[in-house]
């Protein structure tokens, strides 16, 4: 079976549980958004998938094979993150060659092309790059490897708006030309949302959402109106957040609405975008 299956993966550091029994699949040939607040466990999960750190329990299956200590399976996965730093004195071109040694056939045409577009001189040494260009370079390497599963951990860190735009465009072009799985972990939810087909939200070490972006947004609502009517209408719904401005209350709801319930005409219903949904889902609930 194609895809990456996360089976009962748990991770604890000393006594603290970072990931709690994760069970889900990254399906092949789709672009995923992996969203979570700082410390939610995203990077830990990515490092477990790529066998950089061990899970306390559970396993990762890549196209039907256990990934742990399995070079064939691991060469199908590429993780671009803060952790892959290269020696400062090494030239960028050389890094392409090093990458090819492990992953095989590197796409030099694409990489050179992207370097030109981003105005990146490949004769430079890695240590000379600014934070932004270091991330641009890592992104270029990630697109050049022949791996089937590409994980990008905060690929846009330190990039200006123009370069971020170019990065999203390069990603979608490369995906169209060679469909493969991309998993993008990012905090810039609004910018990346249109690129995504599926979305996984991790909160406090647990997957709280895993679905088609469209289906997820379909059941995300903002219900506003006078407090009494709004609280009455939402009483059996999954309310994830509330806001109040003067006499108007806004309730954020995730899940199905109650079709039987009467909707007073002073109450309005709108859909949320992904960022609004994320903020309210991952805010610690304050009981009022």
């Amino acid at each position, binding site marked *: 079976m194609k895809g990456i299956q996360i089976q009962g993966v748990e991770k604890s550091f000393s006594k603290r549980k970072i990931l709690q029994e994760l069970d889900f699949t990254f399906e092949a040939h*789709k*672009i995923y958004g992996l969203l979570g607040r700082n410390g939610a466990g995203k990077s830990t999960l990515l490092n477990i998938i790529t066998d950089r750190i061990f899970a306390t329990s559970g396993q990762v299956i890549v196209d039907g094979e256990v990934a742990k200590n399995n070079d064939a399976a691991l060469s199908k996965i590429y993780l671009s993150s803060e952790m892959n730093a290269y020696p400062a004195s090494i030239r960028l071109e050389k890094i392409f060659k090093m990458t090819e040694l492990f992953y095989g056939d590197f796409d030099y045409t694409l990489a050179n092309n992207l370097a030109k577009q981003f105005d990146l001189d490949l004769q430079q040494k890695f240590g000379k790059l600014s934070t932004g260009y270091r991330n641009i370079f890592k992104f270029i390497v990630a697109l050049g490897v022949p791996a089937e599963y590409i994980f990008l951990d905060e690929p846009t860190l330190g990039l200006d708006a123009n370069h971020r*735009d170019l990065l*999203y*465009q390069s*990603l*979608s*072009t490369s*995906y*169209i030309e060679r469909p493969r799985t991309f998993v993008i972990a990012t905090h810039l939810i*609004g910018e990346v*949302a*249109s*690129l*995504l*087909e599926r979305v996984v939200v991790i909160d406090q070490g647990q997957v709280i959402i895993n679905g088609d972006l*469209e289906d997820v*947004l*379909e059941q995300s609502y903002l219900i506003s109106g006078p407090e009494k009517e709004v609280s009455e209408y939402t009483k059996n719904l999954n309310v994830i957040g509330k806001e109040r401005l003067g006499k108007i209350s806004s309730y954020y709801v995730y899940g199905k609405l109650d079709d039987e319930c009467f909707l007073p005409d002073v109450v309005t219903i*709108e*859909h*949320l*975008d992904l960022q609004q949904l994320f903020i309210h889902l991952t805010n610690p609930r304050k009981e009022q």
Partner: protein
Amino acid sequence: MTKLAMLNVAIDNYEVSRMQFNFNSSEPLYMQVADQIREAIFTRIYVAGDQIPSTTEISRNYHINPATVLKGMNMLVSQNLIEKKRGIGMFVVYDAYQKIVDQRRNEFYQQRVIELVKEARRLNISEDELVKLIERGFGQ
């Protein structure tokens, strides 16, 4: 590349870049894709027999997931506004413009007139006054 081919590419990019998407809108993105193309047919940017921008072009220009763009396209195919010619692309069908006009005329009463009357009532504008205002609008 021949001069003509270059011109075509330039036109394509120009046409693609006329589309506008509101990524913060609560309307699903695939429906916005369909709306934009429908609007372009309605305003005669694309007439019967024209090829519309490909999924790839739209996806690349706006970094929208190709599956999302395709879903919007398929919606228009199922409404018989565009048709797929295998290996070439998507084309505007001969009566697409008329279909869109008919559909918009149907919606005109439901969406515009009813809303107009509702708002007029809230503003205490009488039927006579409203008719006069409409006449004034036509006079412009």
